[in-house]
């Protein structure tokens, strides 16, 4: 479904990658190996060489915001631009249904951002990226700051997304998580993707 060809930026690449609908591919690699650079290239957030296509429709053939609504990058560090949590979600979002899915109380919708813990921010940033039009999720260490229970909730939600047909590219430092989630495990070494050696 998602095909990346000859992606290259800075020390990363050339990278070829195919993601099938409803599958999860994990990417490991040392800090600074360029995992975030790779995800950001796929989301077209930085200038780069190469091309990515979704169902044979290339990224460069459509406006970048339209591409990013389908191929959505969730950064390791979440960003907030309004005072309250609810303002970061689409109008009409049912918070009493959505927030408890990741173990966050429904009333958190009315909280100011400052009141959120790092882990809550991380989960809310993921929730806000899960939308009807999302086809591919590019997740940068989505559970790095979470305890085991919250990590379990996030993984369960990601499995539901996979069942819906969403493809996930998951950057994770946790080999156990990669084993649980990913159909294919890759490692980024010296700017190139390799299969994970079992």
């Amino acid at each position, binding site marked *: 479904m998602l095909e990346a060809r000859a992606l290259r930026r800075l020390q990363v690449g050339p990278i070829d990658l195919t993601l099938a609908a409803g599958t999860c591919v994990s990417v490991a690699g040392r800090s600074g190996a360029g995992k975030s650079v790779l995800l950001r290239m796929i989301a077209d*957030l930085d200038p780069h060489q190469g091309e990515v296509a979704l169902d044979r429709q290339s990224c460069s053939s459509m406006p*970048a*915001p339209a*591409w*990013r609504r389908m191929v959505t990058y969730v950064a390791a560090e979440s*960003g907030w*631009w309004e005072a309250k949590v609810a303002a970061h979600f689409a109008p009409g979002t049912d918070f009493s249904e959505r927030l408890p899915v990741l173990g966050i109380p429904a009333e958190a919708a009315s909280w100011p951002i400052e009141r959120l813990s790092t882990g809550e921010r991380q989960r809310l*940033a993921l929730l806000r990226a899960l939308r009807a039009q999302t086809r591919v999720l590019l997740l940068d260490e989505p559970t790095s700051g979470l305890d085991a229970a919250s990590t379990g909730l996030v993984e369960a939600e990601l499995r539901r997304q996979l069942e819906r047909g969403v493809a996930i590219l998951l950057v994770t430092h946790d080999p156990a998580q990669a084993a649980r989630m990913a159909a294919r495990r890759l490692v980024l070494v010296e700017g190139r993707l390799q299969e994970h050696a079992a």
Partner: protein
Amino acid sequence: MSAPMLDPFDLALAAVLVLLNAAISLWLNLGMARALVIAGVRLVFQLLLVGLALKIVFAMASGWLVAAVVLVMFAAASYEIYSRQERRFAGLWRIGVGAGTTMLATLFVGAFGMLALRPSPWFAPQVTIPLVGIVLGNVMNGVSISLNSFNTAIVRERTAIEARLALGEDRYAALRPLQRSALRGGMIPIINQMSAAGIITLPGMMTGQILAGMAPLEAAKYQILILFLLAGGAGLGALATTSVAVWRMTDERDRLRLDRLQERR
């Protein structure tokens, strides 16, 4: 009534105050006496020199000479904006953005002033040069404050801006809050100046005109005209410069391009 002429003795009398201040600084060990005296001497030389230069320009009444003086003023203002920026655009943009938008707003607002004052000939240096000077100074302030605040905020708010872009908002939507707060910052000084005028202070220009013998009501009308021009100039300049900054700090693929900004060395 005509303006009383000041002779050197009158100025020397006023200079006593500066020397008094310098003495206070020495007494309290503020370490500012030297700087104060140098600033005072600079003021005398600079203003007398400008007065002399303007006397020549006024006497020659040449359109080309007026244009040259205005150009020199633009160049000085551009350099001033450039040197006030904490973070600058890379390449020629580092001076071009502030300089271009300042000139644009100044010329536009200056044209309004000329329409109101109707000098004859239209480039009469007695009108154009002071008019451009006062408008330029204010536009320069509005531009440099808003540009500085925008370029500082864009680095600070990077994760928030990129989160919006990653969720599929376009570059204008993602940067709108930054542009708005930068614009506000650029316009607050002139709004304060307008609301305080006449109550807290008599504006400097009006004071000068009254001292020079103009009827207070006439002086007030001039001051109102000038403050309106300044408000227009500061707003337009800030709007133009932040709009160029939004466009320059992003690209056609709606990416944030912080690589186009350089930290001041």
